[in-house]
């Protein structure tokens, strides 16, 4: 459950990170591929080496979607509808991977924000990313 304060904090953080969406997104993806090599199996069609244009484009896409959802968290099911369909019928990424990506995103945020990634911001962000992942998997079955 996200409080009003937490939703505002989350929106604020993603607003500030949108300009560096490419950096944040590619960093999180690289961390996931390094720590959880099984996740690479979903990317055999892309060049996911550090700094590749594929990786940066894809990372940016993911971060902008997360940032967009953060603008109005109560409407996640509406704003994510197209992505729900994509993930359920086309990508079919096993949802346990969403947790792995979320953990790596939290690490990216910690590296990027340092002290500013306070326990309260961390808690709020973890809750948001869990909610985002849950909505993303809603059409799977």
């Amino acid at each position: 459950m996200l409080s009003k304060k937490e939703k505002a904090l989350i929106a604020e953080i993603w607003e500030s990170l949108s300009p560096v969406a490419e950096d944040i997104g590619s960093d999180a993806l690289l961390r996931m591929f390094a720590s959880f090599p099984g996740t690479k199996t979903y990317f055999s069609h892309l060049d996911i080496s550090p700094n590749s244009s594929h990786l940066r484009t894809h990372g940016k896409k993911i971060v902008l979607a997360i940032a967009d959802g953060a603008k109005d968290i109560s409407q996640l099911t509406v704003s994510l509808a197209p992505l729900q369909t994509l993930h359920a019928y086309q990508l079919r990424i096993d949802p346990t991977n969403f947790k792995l990506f979320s953990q790596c995103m939290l690490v990216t945020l910690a590296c990027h924000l340092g002290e500013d990634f306070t326990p309260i911001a961390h808690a709020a962000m973890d809750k948001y990313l869990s909610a985002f992942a849950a909505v993303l998997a809603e059409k799977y079955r």
Partner: protein
Amino acid sequence: MVQWTDFERATIKAIFAKIDSAVVGPAALSRCLVVYPWTQRYFGKFGNLFNADAIRSNPNVIAHGKVVLDGLARAVQNLDDIKATYAELSVLHSEKLQVDPDNFKLLADCVSIVVAAQLGKDFTPEVQAAFQKFLAVAVSALGKQYY
């Protein structure tokens, strides 16, 4: 037995040389109690855990955080036999403290985040992978004596 690459050994030892367990331990434990509030169930005797500030400044949390990190440091000294090193600790957590082993992973994730915040860019994806592999081994060893 766990196989460590030279890079992993060097990386894990370097991180522990760089961090102060009296700082990282309390930071990680208090973060865990804030981010995963249900973990507070094991700390009923610690006093005021009412909010993030109270948790952060709670002397019991601070003391215990250091104990936990010192425990991890012991595993670093015994990378090739963490299971044996932690046998007694595992029994303690299972029989006396009765901690659900799933909680170990939550605390480990918080340790990662605290170290990441401290090291910033130096906490590269490869460094993170090595560090998290170590934490996973420690977590697994801690759960080994449960039955």
